């Protein structure tokens, strides 16, 4: 930020002015990255719990998934410049736009989660009535269908960020889908551990542990492969958030494996650690992108290197850059 520009190669610029526009997306989109992942992760746990007959895990996770989904929709619509026109997203299906793809994935995902959650809310004394049983059967099928689209919900957001000119998102496009998938699984599993008793929550623990492990691994790989953009990820707020995320996710992982099977309190603490770690990771990555547009060097230096390499006739640095002719 102001004054604490990290050291690095200098490049000519126009009065130091950014080349790109900083994203107009606000914190709401960062928050959505988390709530969307949470909705997907909990949907998987809920549908699984339905299949293996773990009713409390199922109930908690369908309700959690629905709440996260409602929050997601609110955040997405709220971030629009013209919220009342949100339905214009539905007038086309456009494979070149990850946002359009995501809109349709969410449209496929949403109704089943809604039906499952509503069916969970039917009061106990009405459960044996035929409409409630019909709803239950319907919710079960639709809920499973939603869970089948959940992997798309959990990961398309990586394409959403990466298919931009924003260096902080574009340059990490190889690892970001895995980071987000891990983060979504960790939060979904963590939520299950928080809402269901340990005896029922074993699958949630396995899912959370796999997610947390994946997230930590993807994060490390991402850092190892970064070029100039490393400066952004290793400085200021971005670095602080991601370090905190790593510590919490690692602690949550340890807690999940060692404590959560035995104590409810341990499970809850691990779940909260995983959820917070996941959220911080999303905010860290989001802010890294925003930060990377504020300094023209992150745009100009890699392009200049690629251009000079191409002019010298040596290997072009980026396989999606200028066509090799």
């Amino acid at each position, binding site marked *: *930020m102001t*004054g604490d520009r990290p050291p690095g190669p200098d490049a*000519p*610029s*126009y*009065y*130091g*002015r*950014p*080349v*790109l*526009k*900083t994203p*107009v*997306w606000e914190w709401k989109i960062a928050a959505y990255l988390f709530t969307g992942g949470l909705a997907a992760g909990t949907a*998987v*746990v809920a549908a*699984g*719990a339905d299949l293996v007959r*773990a009713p409390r895990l199922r109930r908690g996770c369908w309700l959690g998934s629905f709440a996260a989904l409602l929050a997601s929709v609110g955040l997405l619509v709220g971030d*629009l*410049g*013209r*919220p009342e026109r*949100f339905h*214009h*997203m539905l*007038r*086309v299906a456009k494979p*070149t*736009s*990850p946002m*359009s793809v995501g*809109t349709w994935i969410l449209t496929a995902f949403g109704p089943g989660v809604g039906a499952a959650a509503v069916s969970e809310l039917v009061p106990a004394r009405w459960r044996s009535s035929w409409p409630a049983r019909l709803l239950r059967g319907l919710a079960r099928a639709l809920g499973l269908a939603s869970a089948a689209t*959940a992997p798309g919900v959990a*990961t398309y957001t990586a*394409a959403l960020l*990466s*298919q*931009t*000119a*924003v260096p902080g998102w*574009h340059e990490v*496009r190889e690892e*970001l*889908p895995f980071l987000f*998938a891990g983060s*979504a699984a960790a939060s979904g599993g963590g939520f299950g551990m928080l809402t269901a008793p340990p005896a029922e929550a*074993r*699958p949630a623990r396995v899912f959370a542990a796999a*997610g947390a492990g994946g997230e930590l691994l993807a994060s490390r790989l991402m850092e190892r492969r970064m070029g100039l953009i490393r400066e952004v990820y290793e400085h200021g707020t971005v670095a602080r958030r991601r370090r905190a995320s790593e510590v919490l996710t690692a602690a949550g992982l340890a807690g999940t494996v060692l404590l959560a099977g035995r104590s409810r309190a341990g499970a809850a603490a691990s779940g909260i650690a995983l959820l917070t770690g996941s959220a911080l990771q999303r905010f860290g990555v989001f802010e890294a992108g925003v930060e990377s*547009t504020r300094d*023209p060097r992150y745009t*100009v230096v890699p*392009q200049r290197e*690629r251009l000079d390499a191409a002019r010298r006739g040596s290997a072009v640095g980026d*396989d*999606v*850059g*200028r066509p090799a002719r």
Partner: protein
Amino acid sequence: MTATDRTPPPPVDLARRNGYFDPPPRMGFFTDTSVCIGCKACEVACKEWNHVPEDGLDLLGMSMDNTGMLGANSWRHVAFVEQRRPGTAGPEEQTLAVEARLRAAPRGGSELGTTPLPTAPGGAVADLGMPTVGRPGDGTGAETRTDFRWLMESDVCKHCTEAGCLDVCPTGALFRTEFGTVVVQQDICNGCGYCVSGCPYGVIDRRPHDGRAQKCTLCYDRLKGGLTPACAKACPTESIQFGPLDELRERADRRLAELHGQGVAEAELYGRDPDDGVGGHGSLFLLLDVPEVYGLPPAPVVPTRSAPQIWRRVGAAAAAFALAGIGAFASAAFGDHP
């Protein structure tokens, strides 16, 4: 879709590939900065014709440039660089004074062209020295003249052959016109802001309060009426030339050869090459220095070209996510725990 093609089609085919049956030739701009006099008639004419609102009245310290950047409220922007030798930015003290204020702004200075910068705390203004009248070296003889020169460039949307803004637009508001240009339909745009980050040139932006994305339309309404775009019409030196793109490309080549012949070795064309990262521009430029000196990206690539790679990775990650879920419950179902 044109956008994902690796080898872009020849100019005329662009509209045809987008569904037009008998399109007019692809139209564009050729902005020859070597004859720009920095009068800003283009900025003014554009604002007037297109009803582009004020983008902030301010003295930026960027030489004579008080617009700063293209944006939602500036569809033409004249850049000014006071330069001691090619390949350098403006004088360092000038850049340092300006840069500090840009860095402190909410969007790092990229809000210029859309909204003004916040005023410096306490109204402190950097002292850039008094302007002097006369050319450097005047009064002492040519032998003491410095290498000082003044670069001016009228920037505009590049109307890319492979347009990042258009590709990522989820509503279809951004579309390819029959002239091969890229235009936002204002009755469709819902202000999602994706195009702002999809453009590798920092051109398009969302207009505050209005909430929709805004940029140069290459005067789509005027073109439909057979008129020249407002900026080109107003330009007194023909620095901005308008016409069919293949003609402009030839003109640009001729002008470049002419300047090289006159010893202006640093002259280069920007956006001329149909094999570049965006498949070439609809609006070409002749620059007298490297693009970054004008605040332009030297070799941008449309993010869409990474889409296959990105979706492959997303698919793999989604599969891993699904497997983790299935594995977690399979272990519960077949394990001895409930």
